[in-house]
């Protein structure tokens, strides 16, 4: 095996690593660094309860301050959002026509499947979970009056596990040009065996044989033919799971032990409640994913038989995966619900209606979400009596979700509604969540699901929730808290443009998918020119074109958003202590108190005074939409 050569190489690199370490530890004490002078727009320098930070890039590589880590999570998630979004744009363009054409020259169906896999995994694990961690890292300590997270260093470790995770998950794309046997994984985000256990770089099966004209799975894997891209992806996914678990433990510890003396359980805000519940869900479900991934890796590389037919079988995998997978969708949706419950009342001029019931329904969803996983397996041939039970619980879980929805609507009822950009996104959330939820209830009914399973209806359902609701709440949060994080106000007109493009694009794209599903268009296909039924091909084509147009509108909207964020961060008008005029409505919030404190401290330190008073998006009562309160 050429061991001696490798040993020599290893020794050399080992020595190099040591030298780097020795140099690094020379900077004995990171605390002796002088602070950044004056603050600047980015993050500002407050130093409350914290030691001073090193400057420049080193600050970002070594920070353990929850606010900095929150910003790092946010930037990371946006990069992932771009990757996942561009992948899906290619897919949508391919789907605009029935035949394989757009992607034909770059790998055809196999490439489509790679994009599909990368899109799903990226959006769920590299965008969804991290962007929520961005909010919780930045704001939970501020909301509960803590100095920082309970374990600041573990917080940093959890973040730094993510970049290598992303590199590994995407590694197949980077390595494919250089190695014949490596391609991006084509397992789809669910990674079902036997595919996930035995797929070659060309998308063929490394563990099947032909018998009587049919392809039969065998237990023998041709290991040499396996796609290493899948191994790397599984490893990356494992790292992101470790990261999420570390983060969850940290949040539980923080919310339990670090609350300020004046924040009792009765005073805990709704966002913190949802993060607490989410963390519990992560704690109980991500280890399942981790174990299932390790078993897949062992099956692939070390000839074990966890999911082989004569071992646990493929249904075992589905149980393990969905025991994680269903809680995962609530891991993704609970904090956004918290953001909505937090932001919506601020622009309705009223307190959240039925606060207690919103908290109870959060906890109820948390518990119930562990009892519904098999609704993803209704069509897999499991025992019908099992299906009935899971159908009942799945229908039941719609109740706490509906409780929340009614509470939001009641909060707005007769309120003094200010249609600011964050508020628009809140309202959009509710509208889309209703469609996503109702389609979910239909899918939860076994007879309906047997017809709609694996069609675009399912794709439409979960995108209404994930894009239409979760992403909308993320945007609501981004706009609402932008003044705190950046110290500046975004451009209102661009914000509105972003909302309307996103709202229209989402509904065009995903409603078309629901109709496609009714027509019977199966999901996870790169082409549909094999469809022969009279008339249906035209129906499919039209709806796919509509979905593609919608996706394009979404793309334009997100570019507008990025431009707005970058431009406003750099040169937006500086905001005052209460950019949303929350005091007027008697709806103060702790993080904006902190924001006001910070401005005061900066002024006392001789920072620039913010002479031009808050230029807010709707900081004044909103009878006239275009009054002078607008930003530039």
């Amino acid at each position, binding site marked *: 095996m050429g*061991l001696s050569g490798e040993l020599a190489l290893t020794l050399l690199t080992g020595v190099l690593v040591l030298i780097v370490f020795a140099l690094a530890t020379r900077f004995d004490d990171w605390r002796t660094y002088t602070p950044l002078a004056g603050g600047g727009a980015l993050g500002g320098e407050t130093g409350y*309860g914290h030691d001073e930070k090193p400057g420049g890039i080193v600050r970002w590589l070594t920070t353990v301050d929850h606010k900095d880590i929150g910003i790092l999570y946010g930037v990371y998630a946006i990069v992932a959002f771009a990757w996942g979004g561009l992948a899906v744009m290619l897919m949508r363009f391919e789907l605009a026509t029935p035949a394989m054409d757009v992607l034909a020259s770059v790998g055809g169906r196999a490439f489509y499947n790679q994009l599909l896999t990368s899109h799903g995994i990226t959006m769920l694990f590299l965008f969804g979970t991290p962007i929520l961690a961005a909010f919780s890292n930045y704001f939970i300590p501020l909301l509960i009056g803590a100095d920082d997270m309970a374990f600041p260093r573990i917080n940093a470790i959890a973040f730094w596990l993510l970049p290598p995770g992303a590199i590994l998950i995407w590694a197949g794309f980077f390595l494919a040009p250089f190695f014949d046997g490596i391609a991006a994984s084509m397992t789809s985000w669910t990674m079902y065996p036997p595919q996930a256990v035995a797929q070659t770089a060309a998308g063929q099966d490394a563990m099947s044989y032909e018998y009587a004209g049919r392809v039969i799975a065998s237990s023998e894997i041709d290991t040499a033919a396996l796609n290493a891209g899948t191994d790397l992806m599984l490893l990356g996914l494992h790292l992101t799971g470790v990261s999420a678990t570390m983060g969850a433990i940290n949040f539980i510890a923080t919310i339990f032990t670090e609350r300020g003396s004046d924040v009792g359980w009765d005073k805990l805000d709704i966002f913190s409640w949802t993060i607490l519940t989410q963390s519990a869900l992560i704690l109980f479900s991500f280890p399942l994913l981790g174990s299932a991934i390790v078993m897949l890796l062992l099956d692939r590389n070390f000839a074990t038989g966890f999911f082989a037919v004569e071992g646990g079988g493929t249904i075992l995998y589905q149980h393990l995966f969905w025991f994680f997978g269903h809680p995962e969708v609530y891991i993704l949706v609970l904090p956004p619900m918290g953001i909505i419950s937090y932001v919506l009342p601020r622009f309705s001029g009223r307190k959240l209606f039925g606060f207690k019931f919103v908290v109870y329904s959060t906890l109820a969803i948390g518990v119930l979400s562990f009892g519904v996983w098999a609704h993803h397996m209704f069509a897999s041939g499991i025992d019908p009596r099992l299906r009935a039970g899971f159908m009942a619980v799945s229908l039941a879980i719609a109740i706490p979700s509906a409780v929340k929805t009614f509470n939001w609507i009641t909060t707005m009822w007769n309120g003094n509604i200010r249609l600011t950009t964050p508020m628009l996104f809140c309202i959009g959330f509710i509208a889309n969540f209703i469609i996503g939820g109702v389609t979910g209830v239909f899918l939860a009914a076994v007879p309906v699901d047997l017809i709609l399973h694996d069609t675009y209806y399912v794709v439409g359902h979960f995108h209404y929730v994930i894009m239409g609701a979760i992403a909308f709440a993320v945007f609501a949060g981004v706009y609402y808290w932008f003044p705190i994080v950046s110290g500046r106000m975004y451009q209102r007109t661009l914000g509105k443009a972003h909302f309307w493009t996103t709202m229209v694009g989402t509904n065009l794209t995903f409603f078309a998918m629901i109709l496609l599903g009714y027509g019977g268009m199966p999901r996870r296909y790169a082409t549909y020119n094999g469809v022969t039924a009279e008339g249906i091909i035209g129906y499919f084509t039209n709806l796919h074109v509509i979905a593609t147009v919608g996706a394009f509108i979404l793309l334009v909207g997100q570019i507008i958003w990025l431009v707005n964020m970058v431009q406003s961060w750099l040169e937006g008008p500086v905001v005052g202590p209460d950019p949303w005029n929350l005091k007027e409505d008697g709806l103060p919030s702790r993080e904006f108190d902190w924001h006001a404190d910070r401005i005061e401290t900066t002024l006392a330190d001789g920072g620039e005074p913010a002479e031009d008073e808050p230029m807010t998006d709707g900081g004044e009562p909103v009878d006239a939409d275009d009054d002078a309160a607008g930003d530039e």
Partner: protein
Amino acid sequence: MSKERVEDGAASSEGNRAVTDHKPSASLWPMFIAFGLAIAEVGVVVGVFVFTVIGFLMFTGAVAGILAEAGYVERPWVALGVLGTVVLALGIAVFGAFGGVVGGTELVAVPNAVAYRGLSMISAGALTILTAGVGSIRSELT
């Protein structure tokens, strides 16, 4: 990590922010822990000798560093030695269990890919212990 609160400073609502314990603001180690773990994982699972060694060195080194920084251990080199021993023991176990042989004409014989991974962990552990030794001698001298 001193977690005690300065109680008398927490009287006003901002008190808990203004005074109170020292939270660290920067640490060198978290990034290396994460990267080390990632590299070691790839090294072991995919079977890349160099990655295994570098990954484990980085990981154990950074763990020892962070433990010392947070005040959980007095001397990081000892912690490093312990961690290195763990890696070494794991490596020996894997190497032995999958038929690796020392001696004979080849000096070190690895009959299969799993024993090979064991060998790479042995190298990582040995190198780590060596580092710990050198480091503690150096710190004795200065």
